[in-house]
C-alpha cells in the first residue's frame, strides 16, 4: 500500500501517523507538503494527521481545508482513493466539504485527553473491516473541538446509509451520555463518505498500535485499510 501523510503548518501528529503506517502496514509513507498541488503517483491512502493546522485559528481545520493540496485530495477521493482524516484531519474534511457536518467545542468546554471506548458500527468499510461490527475498542482522544453536529436530515442519511463508523461507548458498547466524551450528536466519533472511501475520526488509533503504549486496539483500522488495498490490487 502506498500512503501519503499531508503536512500542514501546525500539524503535529504526523509522526505518530507515519509510525503507525510503518509498523502496521509495513511501508514508509511519503510526507506531502500542504502547498503541493499533486499527490505522489500511485497513492492508495492519504492521511490528514492530527494537530492544530494554522493554529486552529478562526475555526479548526478551516484554513487548511483551503490549501492547494486539498484539491488533489478531493480528486483522489472522487476517484475512489482512501482518505483518512484523524482529529484535525476530520475537522479539515468537514471544512472542505468532503464530509458533512461540523465539529464544535466539546460540550464540557475543555480539551480532553483520555482513552475512550469506541463501538465499531459496521464492518463493511475499508476503515472498519479489521474489526467485527459491534466490537468495542479502546483508543485515546485528544481534542477540544470534537463535538460532531449535523442537521436532522444529514443525520438520518448517515444513519440510513450505514455511514456512522464509530461511536463513543461504555465498556459493553453502551451509548450513554456519560461515555460521550464531547457531547457529539448520536455519540458519533467517526463517519465515512457516501462511497465509504473517506473516514473522519476524532480519536487517535495511531497512538494505540504498540503493546508498550498500553494497547494495540488501533491496529485493526490500519490493517483493514491494508487488506482493502491489497484485495483491490
Amino acid at each position, binding site marked *: 500500500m502506498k500512503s501519503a501523510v499531508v503536512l500542514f503548518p501546525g500539524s503535529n501528529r504526523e509522526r505518530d501517523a507515519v509510525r503507525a503506517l510503518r509498523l502496521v502496514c509495513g511501508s514508509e509513507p511519503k510526507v506531502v507538503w500542504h502547498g503541493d498541488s499533486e499527490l505522489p503517483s500511485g497513492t492508495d491512502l492519504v492521511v490528514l494527521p492530527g494537530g492544530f493546522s494554522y493554529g486552529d485559528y478562526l475555526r479548526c481545520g478551516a484554513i487548511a481545508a483551503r490549501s492547494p493540496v486539498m484539491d488533489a485530495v478531493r480528486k483522489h477521493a472522487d476517484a475512489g482513493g482512501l482518505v483518512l482524516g484523524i482529529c484535525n484531519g476530520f475537522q479539515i474534511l468537514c471544512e472542505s466539504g468532503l464530509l458533512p457536518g*461540523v465539529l464544535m*467545542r466539546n460540550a464540557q468546554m475543555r480539551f480532553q485527553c483520555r482513552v475512550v471506548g469506541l463501538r465499531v458500527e459496521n464492518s463493511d468499510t475499508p476503515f472498519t473491516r479489521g474489526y467485527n461490527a459491534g466490537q468495542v475498542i479502546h483508543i485515546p482522544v485528544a481534542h477540544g473541538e470534537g463535538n460532531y453536529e449535523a442537521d436532522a436530515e444529514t443525520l438520518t442519511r448517515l444513519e440510513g446509509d450505514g455511514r456512522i463508523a464509530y461511536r463513543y461507548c461504555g465498556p459493553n458498547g453502551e451509548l450513554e451520555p456519560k461515555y460521550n466524551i464531547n457531547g457529539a450528536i448520536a455519540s458519533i466519533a467517526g463517519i465515512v463518505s457516501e462511497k465509504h472511501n473517506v473516514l473522519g475520526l476524532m480519536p487517535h488509533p495511531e497512538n494505540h498500535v504498540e503493546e508498550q503504549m498500553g494497547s494495540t486496539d488501533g491496529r485493526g483500522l490500519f490493517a483493514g485499510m491494508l487488506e482493502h488495498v491489497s484485495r483491490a490490487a
Partner: protein
Amino acid sequence: MKARVTVTLKPSILDPQGKAIEGALKSLGVGGIASVRQGKIFEIEVEGGDKAKAEAALKQAADKLLANTVIENYRVEIE
C-alpha cells in the same frame, strides 16, 4: 477603509460556549441575564476607497473563509 464582518451561529445551532458563559455569569452573581450567544467579529482594514469594491471583497472573504455557512450567518458593515 475600516470594515467589520460579524459572524454568528445560526439560531437553530446549539451554542455550548454561550451556555457555559450564561452559567458562569449566574454563579458570579451577575443578575438579569436571560441568554448569551457568542459570535466572532473581524475588524478589517480595507485598501483603497471604493466602497462597492470593498463590500464585494468582504463578502467573498466571508463566504470563502470567515464564516462556515453551514452553521453560521454573517453581516458586513463598512464605516
